[in-house]
């Protein structure tokens, strides 16, 4: 049986560690290594990258000899919706302002739930938006526009 199927967690984790370690090692080569007495900016990262690659290799090797538990359910809808809602909020908050960005964030993320209902989400979006405008923007002075630059503000 292939290691991805038999021990996906060890195999994938190991691959991630090796990739990140190798990436950091390659980038570190641009910096000055220095000596032990006078450590350069590459010294510690090179040490760590090597260690990470070693851990990654052991993890991958282990997935060939030892079976592990499956990854289990993945909340794909949750992953995509939460990510999309957050990114969209970041992208439009200055342009559109919180009056539009917040309700969108609330409703879009709430739609990730299997128990989503338009009615409660819209009510919640209104409540949260009003609360945030008063508490964060008026009260604590967070510099976010209520209506953003797209509306000529």
């Amino acid at each position, binding site marked *: 049986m292939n290691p991805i199927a038999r021990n996906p*967690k*060890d195999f994938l*984790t190991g691959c991630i*560690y090796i990739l*990140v*370690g190798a990436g*950091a090692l390659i*980038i570190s080569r641009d*910096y*000055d290594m220095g*000596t*032990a*007495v*006078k*450590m350069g*900016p590459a010294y*510690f*990262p090179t040490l*760590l*990258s090597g*260690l*990470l690659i070693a*851990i990654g290799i052991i*993890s991958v090797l*282990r997935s060939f000899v030892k079976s592990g*538990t499956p*990854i289990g*359910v*993945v*909340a794909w*809808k*949750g*992953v995509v919706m*939460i*990510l999309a*809602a*957050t*990114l969209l*909020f*970041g*992208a439009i*908050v200055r342009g559109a302002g919180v009056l539009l960005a*917040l309700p969108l*964030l*609330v409703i879009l*993320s*709430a739609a*990730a*739930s*299997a*128990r*989503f209902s338009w009615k409660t989400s819209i009510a*919640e*979006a209104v409540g*949260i938006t009003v609360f945030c405008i008063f508490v*964060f923007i008026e009260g*604590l002075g*967070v*510099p*976010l526009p209520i209506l953003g630059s797209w509306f000529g503000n």
Partner: protein
Amino acid sequence: MELIANLGLGLSTSLTPLNLLYCLAGVFLGTLIGVLPGLGPTATIAMLLPVTFTLPPVSALIMLAGIYYGSQYGGSTTSILVNVPGEAASVVTALDGYQMARRGRAGAALTTAAVGSFFAGTVATVILALFAPPLATVALKFGPAEFFSLMVLGLLASIVLARGSLLHAAGMVVLGLLLGLVGTDVNSGIQRFTFGLPRLADGIGFVVVAMGMFGLAEITRNLENEETRSTVVAKVSNLMPTREEWKRMVSPILRGTAIGSALGILPGSGSILGSFAAYAIEKKVSKNSKEFGKGAIEGVAAPESANNAGAQTSFIPMLTLGIPSNPVMALMIGAMIIQGIQPGPSVITEQPQLFWGIIVSMWVGNLFLVVLNLPMIGMWVRLVSVPYQMLFPAILVFCGIGVFSLNNTEFDIFTMAFFGLVGYLFVKLDCEPAPMLLAYILGPMMEEYLRRALLISRGDPTVFFTRPISATLLALGALAVVAASLPALHKKREEAFRE
């Protein structure tokens, strides 16, 4: 009698109206997020950190501390009434607490949890006051080699205490150390791993990473199995335990407090490990062990005392050594740095007001918590019934606005989203985020201490093994790792985390 003078200073600091107010606000918020499942102290403190910029340092830290130990109280309410842990440290409380509630003893279980927590909180406050100052005095003698070894020990301990595979946790630590190096190198002025992005010149904000990995990733994980969430809330009638119940809770509270206090100091655990260990030990030593899982009052008293004691003693390494033992403490260190206080053994002598003010405020806060949690239980019961699908969009909004307000930039929102994704990926791969976050905070400090230690020793790496304190610390770390990987103990460790 220096202690009494110090405690007097602490009292006068923590009893000013302003600090009392922030202490109350902290424990109130703590109880609130403790009661609400899916929102933990790490994400909450991360969200509130920007708000504390404007407060005086003592008030800010008193409030943040209150959130942490307050959440330990609140977590038990949800465990007992709905069989869903409000907090990770209250997982085991649900086992017997909910069974007690089903037998109509919900009130007694809540009282047991509150009394146990209060007792444990009081003892832990005394332990802090007694042991923190001598520890800080010892730490003042530490050189760079000792600090480096201490951090290695802390990270090794966080690997041993993490759930799941040791190897994965070790990788997470190294990953966190590397991530901590992103930004400008203080010695050479070179920007490392910034990919030419000027926003990364100061490094990735710790709060941004914490909110992503603990806030967003947690929401996504909770969306996996929302159908199975129980929504039935048990009724609370009589809060008063019977005479028999009072008698049975005494020794579990004492044992729980001792176990929790001891384990709380260890890096990587804080309150969670203590509650698991206290439950497991109580089950072994109690003469009512047959009743465990069916509503034994001991099964509520022991873990609830332990988690509160652990939450408080985990402040010891943070306050005396400037080294965080869990992500919450790492955030507290962040709060100190923002306020212009350099965490470390000198805090106690240079900022005695802050140090003693926090300690005494913990006891005051525990007093508030008893009042908040027993007479006002009705309010929390209603809150328990707020469904998660209403809760998480609000959490997301607070994360979004909170992270923006750190530097007033959308870049942090995108970074948070990225770490939310990464955090969920690691959850699925059994890689716990806590060791990574600790390493992330320690990364730059470790590099600096390593640099200085090697400079002093003229490049001789054996300095870490020839200096006695340093060697002892490293030996302890090695011992912990070896012990955890022995087959017999390895099995025990897995069992402890499964329960």
